């Protein structure tokens, strides 16, 4: 005959009391495993997404579009306003039009006899023409400058939004506010390179017209002086408007702006030298020009920009070989074609296959301009995205300007090459991105989520310990008669404590096993239907999560429950129970 007080009897004959406790604990463990696994997945996916940095160093220009554009634009806009007032005054009452009307009102005889007066008439007509043109130029020029400035502001606002979301990933308010404020404008704005091209044209036109106006005004004044010197003073000849210093300054500002915009079309100075010098660093395996760009992808912990390498054809093959990747569908991009090859996880994440398209035309958060056709799917340990260097630099202004390098150190020389490169680039035109930097960024992003998660686990553990501990105590109080009797008839106190401990241990162990089992089932399902199709990584059997992260709950619950029940058992007075008359 088995022990009637066996654990088996206890569990199977108290199912209605044991199962709810097992259920509550199992649910909590399920929750912890799911949140922990998603967090681990976010970290692993981020590592995998930026895994290419483990074998290369990206040398990127430090200058940004903001820095290149901001000052000339602001300066030009300020001057534009002054010039508008000047040109309005020139063309207004008593201005060029009045002067022109006065000149053509001179007696026909006088005009016919005097070539100087005819010259004056031509110059006045020119001045009027250029003033009208410049007035016409100034309106769209101002609008374009404002639009380009708006683009910069938008980029700053977006960066600020990203920063806020990184700091408070669970607070959607900044995102909602941003979208509400910027939605309409985002939909209407043209690609920034097109805006810049228009601005360049408008600047050129305004500069030429301002030049023409200024020359006409100078000619008018020379004509008048010449007439006066010749003693052919016509009593009713009006005084011509003076050439203005403001227009000169404006021309100068426009010239500066033209130069700035022109320089944007060129690669960063020093790139060729840096390429040559980098190749000479001992321990460097490969150096390639890189017109890098980005695709927006979901990393579970938020969206991120996946790096695309814009390199030449031999470089594409070398990059695949370096990472042990291969093209499993389609081919690599052709020379000078708007084509892209990406890893299968990225393709899945963006829901594209060979023949599909990626780029800013389809997703405005992509830095990759226009729409590139996916021509190849890459498979291998490292996620890659490859685009042709020549197409990027010959078709897009900014991509030409913001070219960088990829430097691939030989194995074991990463640190040395990094240090040499850092010495080469100094602290000015370029900066380096390598795996330690990228990993630190990812860890910093995940660290916030990790802290929240740890806090939640702690909270759940504490609350559960209290709740289950309370349930245990209630259950124990219902069994006081049983323990009172056993103590009275000679069962040892420690024996009773051991028995209750085994009962609690069994319940928490069962809850842990059920919770972990259900969690593995749920994660497997979620992995199959969501994570894999979206190119996200998840380790369903992450024992670090399954075992270590979930154990505090049953452990705390057990210790708390046993602590209180054990204390009561130690202080149990069987006589007080025997004498109870309830």
């Amino acid at each position, binding site marked *: *005959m*088995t*022990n*009637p*007080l066996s654990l088996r*009897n*206890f569990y199977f*004959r*108290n199912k209605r009391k044991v199962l709810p406790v097992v259920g509550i604990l199992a649910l909590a463990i399920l929750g912890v495993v799911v949140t922990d696994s998603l967090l681990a997945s976010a970290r692993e996916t981020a590592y995998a997404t930026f895994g290419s940095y483990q074998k290369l160093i990206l040398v990127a220009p430090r200058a940004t579009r903001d820095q290149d554009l901001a000052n000339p634009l602001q300066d030009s806009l300020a001057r534009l306003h002054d010039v508008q007032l000047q040109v309005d005054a020139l063309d207004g009452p008593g201005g060029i039009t009045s002067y022109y009307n006065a000149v053509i009102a001179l007696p026909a005889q006088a005009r016919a006899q005097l070539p100087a007066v005819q010259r004056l008439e031509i110059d006045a007509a020119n001045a009027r023409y250029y003033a009208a043109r410049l007035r016409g130029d100034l309106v769209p020029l101002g609008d374009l400058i404002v639009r380009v400035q708006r683009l910069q502001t938008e980029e700053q606002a977006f960066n600020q939004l990203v920063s806020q979301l990184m700091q408070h990933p669970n607070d959607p308010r900044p995102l909602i506010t941003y979208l509400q404020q910027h939605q309409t404008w985002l939909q209407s704005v043209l690609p920034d390179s097109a805006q810049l091209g228009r601005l360049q044209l408008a600047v050129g036109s305004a500069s030429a017209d301002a030049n023409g106006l200024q020359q006409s005004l100078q000619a008018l004044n020379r004509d008048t002086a010449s007439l006066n010197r010749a003693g052919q003073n016509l009593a009713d000849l009006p005084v011509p408007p003076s050439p203005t210093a403001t227009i000169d300054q404006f021309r100068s500002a426009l010239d500066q702006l033209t130069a700035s915009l022109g320089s944007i079309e060129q690669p960063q100075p020093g790139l060729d030298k840096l390429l040559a010098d980098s190749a000479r660093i001992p321990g460097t395996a490969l150096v390639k020009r890189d017109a890098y760009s980005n695709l927006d992808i979901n990393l579970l912990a938020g969206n991120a920009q996946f790096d695309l390498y814009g390199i030449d054809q031999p470089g594409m093959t070398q990059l695949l070989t370096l990472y042990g990747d291969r093209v499993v569908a389609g081919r690599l991009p052709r020379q000078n074609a708007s084509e892209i090859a990406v890893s299968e996880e990225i393709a899945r994440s963006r829901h594209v296959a060979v023949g599909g398209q990626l780029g800013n035309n389809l997703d405005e958060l992509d830095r990759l301009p226009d729409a590139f056709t996916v021509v190849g799917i890459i498979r291998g340990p490292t996620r890659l995205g490859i685009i042709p260097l020549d197409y990027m630099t010959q078709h897009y202004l900014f991509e030409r300007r913001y070219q960088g390098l990829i430097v691939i150190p030989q194995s074991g020389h990463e640190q040395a090459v990094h240090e040499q490169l850092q010495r080469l680039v100094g602290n000015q035109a370029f900066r380096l991105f390598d795996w330690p930097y990228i990993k630190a960024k990812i860890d910093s992003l995940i660290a916030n989520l990790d802290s929240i998660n740890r806090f939640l686990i702690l909270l759940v553990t504490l609350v559960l310990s209290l709740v289950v501990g309370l349930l245990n105590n209630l259950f124990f109080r219902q069994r006081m*008669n*049983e323990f*009172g*009797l*056993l103590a*009275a*008839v*000679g*069962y*040892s106190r420690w024996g009773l404590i051991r028995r209750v401990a085994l009962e609690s241990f069994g319940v928490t162990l069962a809850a842990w096993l059920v919770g972990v089992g259900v969690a593995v089932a749920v994660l497997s399902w979620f992995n199959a239907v969501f994570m894999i199709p979206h190119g996200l990584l998840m380790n369903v059997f992450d024992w670090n999560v399954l075992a270590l992260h979930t154990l505090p709950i049953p452990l705390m619950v057990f210790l708390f429950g046993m602590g209180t029940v054990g204390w009561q058992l130690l202080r149990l007075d*069987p*006589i007080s129970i*025997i*004498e*109870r*008359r309830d």
Partner: protein
Amino acid sequence: MLSAQDLALDYRSGGSVAHAVDTVSLAVERGSFVGLIGPSGSGKSSLMYLLSGLKRPNRGAVSFEDRDYASLSGAGLMRLRRHRFGFVFQQHFLVNYLSAVENVMVGAVKRNHDTAAYAQELLRRVGLGDKLQKRPYQLSIGERQRVAVARALVHRPAVVFADEPTASLDQATGHEVVNLLADYRRTGGGSLLVVTHDPAMLTGADRVLQMRDGRIAA
């Protein structure tokens, strides 16, 4: 076999001291049936707690088979209660999730087939042969108390202490329960100490001790 010498148990409450047991000496011989009777608060239950080792006295000595309780540790007293004594209380204190026979086995020291057979035999003897597998909530109050009696006897104790075992029963059932205990005394040779306030329950007792104000009056 079981003897007490000048036993005293005091309860202190604030500044005052109540003498629950006041200088009591007695001896319970092997196989005897001793009844302790007295009004509520006379100290009969307290005396039983002292004799069974559930409480330690303030003064005096108790010994069982020539072993002084004072020489036994708490664990030693527990072993004594577990192995040599049997207990029946006013309430049955059956474990709700166990069957009648399993509840009897709670009192067993060795759990083997012989003990299990004896447990069933005891239940048959107390008239519950057809209710071995019934749970306490499926039994009447009298039946539950009979299961409690069987539990007290299953390990063949040398002394059975019964503290108001009939208080919650009607008179007929009460007699039945006391007779069961008396039968054990007769057939098993164990001693029986029954605490009650009902003299009718002690008709078969060898000795009836009247308690009043913590002392044995007669």
